[in-house]
């Protein structure tokens, strides 16, 4: 298991937290919570080691559109980059419902 952290600049306050997904094979769990300051913090624990660059690419792309001041925790059980992106978007959708 590998732990990875990233920070992205953010400015928009969000009102609600969101939890989506399951730590099942090929899937992941996303916990998204409002935070303070002007940064979005992402904390990842993944069962598959050695994919830091791929995680960075997925999150870089996600944060080109998303600017919420949040703390995101990801517990991953080998999801593909596509699944990761979909789960992140789902978490955003639930938090803005």
């Amino acid at each position, binding site marked *: *298991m590998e732990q990875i952290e990233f920070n992205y600049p953010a400015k928009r306050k969000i009102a609600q*937290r969101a*939890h989506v997904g*399951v*730590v*099942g*094979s090929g*899937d992941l*769990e996303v*916990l998204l*919570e409002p935070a303070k300051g002007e940064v979005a913090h992402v904390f990842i*624990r*993944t*069962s598959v080691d050695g994919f830091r660059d791929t995680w960075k690419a997925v999150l870089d792309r996600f944060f080109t559109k998303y600017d919420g001041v949040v703390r995101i*925790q990801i*517990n*991953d*059980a080998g999801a593909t980059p596509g699944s990761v992106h979909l789960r992140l978007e789902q978490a955003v959708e639930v938090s803005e419902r």
Partner: protein
Amino acid sequence: MSNQAYSPNLIKRRSFIELNARERASVFFDAGTSRELLGPFDRVESPWLPMQGVTPQEDDGCVVIKGKIAGQAAVVVALEGAFQGGSIGEVSGQKMTAALDLACADNEKGILTSAVILLETGGVRLQEANLGLAAIAELMASILALRKHAPVICLTAGTVGCFGGMSLAAGLASYVVMTREARLGMNGPEVIEQENGVEEFDSSDRALIWAIHGGEQRYATGLADALVDDDTPQVAEVIRRFVSKGVPPEHRSSQVALYRNRIAKLDTSRQWDPKEFRALWTTNASNEENR
């Protein structure tokens, strides 16, 4: 041919099996009465999994929701089959036991509180070995304490089913509800094959496995109390009915003489066929009831 004739009820169904544990646990409650206890944001996860390089889940694969079912206080505990096979670890086991103990304490205070346990589990989580075993022992004690006051209903819907120590816990329930897709048994097919060889049990023979462990057989032989379709409204309706029904006159696991007698009558010198066995236990059941 019209669609109607082709696929009459299947299309109208809302699958229960496709729901995750949290969604499953939410479907039984009267509107606006439920709240989750120790949810993922409380971050009570297994301390043992990360040490072994396994990603934990924030609710440890156990969802506890308290609320009202059919106007009556109830707690629903759901295991997430997709996380580590729904296995019981220190945290998930303690969450289940504590939920049942709180329900028991409420009953003792005069607030009738039932429990519904949604089992998708292979039993003890091997990474937490003894702690998982201890948790199941405690859970069984808690079921026995609670079922004196209010019904404890176990539902296994599939596709994981219910195996290992948790099948014993299900055996203590006031009522067991299954779907055709679900399986209930002590040792899983792979375990039996591994220990006793493929001649004993071929774990790749799905028809054989379901003929022995499947919901239909368990219901027909009186080891489950209801057989439901994989349809959320129907599952919820049956659970509400059992909550309203209250404690049965005699729990299945208290009928020691009946089951001893049944087992004694089985001739184990030859191989039984699941159909034959069903006929015998079904006949037995009706004869014994008529007595």
